[in-house]
């Protein structure tokens, strides 16, 4: 184990800005990517669902 205390761990031997800056931004970027993709998927599904209801209405109209 490298670190005597959590404080030492977070200080990263004086390199905290650089190391944590890298870690946090990397994590944030990947999370953001995931979140954006979820939004995109929701929008796409909504679009498909709307198409389904449209088709249903259309087929109801033609059958009656």
């Amino acid at each position, binding site marked *: *184990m*490298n*670190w005597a205390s959590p404080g030492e*761990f977070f200080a*990263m*031997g*004086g*390199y905290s*800005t*650089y*190391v944590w*800056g*890298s*870690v946090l*931004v*990397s994590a944030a*970027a*990947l999370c953001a*990517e*995931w979140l954006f*993709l979820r939004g*995109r*998927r929701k929008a*796409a*599904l909504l*679009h*498909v*669902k709307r*198409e*389904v209801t449209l*088709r249903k209405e259309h087929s109801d109209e033609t059958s009656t």
Partner: protein
Amino acid sequence: MINWFKFSSPKTFYPFAGKLIPWLAAMATMLAIAGMYVGFFVAPTDAQQGEGYRIIFFHVPVSWMSMLIYLAMAFWAAIGLVFNSRLSAMMASALAPTGAIFTFLSLWTGALWGKPMWGTWWVWDARLTSELILLFLYIGFMALQSAIDEPRRADKAGAVLALVGVVNIPIIYFSVQWWNTLHQGASVSLTKAPSMATIMLVGMLLMVFAAWLYSMAITLARVRCIILEREHHADWLYQLKEVKR
């Protein structure tokens, strides 16, 4: 034998990818946790760089992935162009954003590493410049595709661009050999023994595999999205349970 043609149709690929994604994501998370544990708690302090070197566990995986994803993108784009298969072109489009993010992260972590080690955020050296070009290539690819309304034309135009940009990848990789630059050379190669401590190497490789699996998971998820967007008039979509719900 697996029938590849079966999987090259969006209809069969969509559920198949759906089943794969959770596994890939779970494995990526586990590997990342293991890698970070090794990186932060097991690997010792570096003699020259102190704790600052620990950026390596992020910088190297994202840098490798940025190049690898481009190669994969160009590969699928070429397959899409030659065999006119829709799914391959979708794969290429799905890879681009992830590649761009990894490229951005490579630049970001590199810059954060450069400030303490070289005393500057940025220099115009060959490795750094060619990596920046890679980012522009990804952005150009995405911008070109989004500017074209007709999906097939977007696929083909994107493919031409992706193939032209491939020349950049060897330039990035070999730049440290061809020009004497600030950036350090490859320390991992298949032919030579690695020049770094084994435990660092283990941590780094764990992170590399984590990044690899993450890329696969998110790309497959994005391909599914693209399928939903492009095929929204196809009948088979309406049978899906997420649509019926």
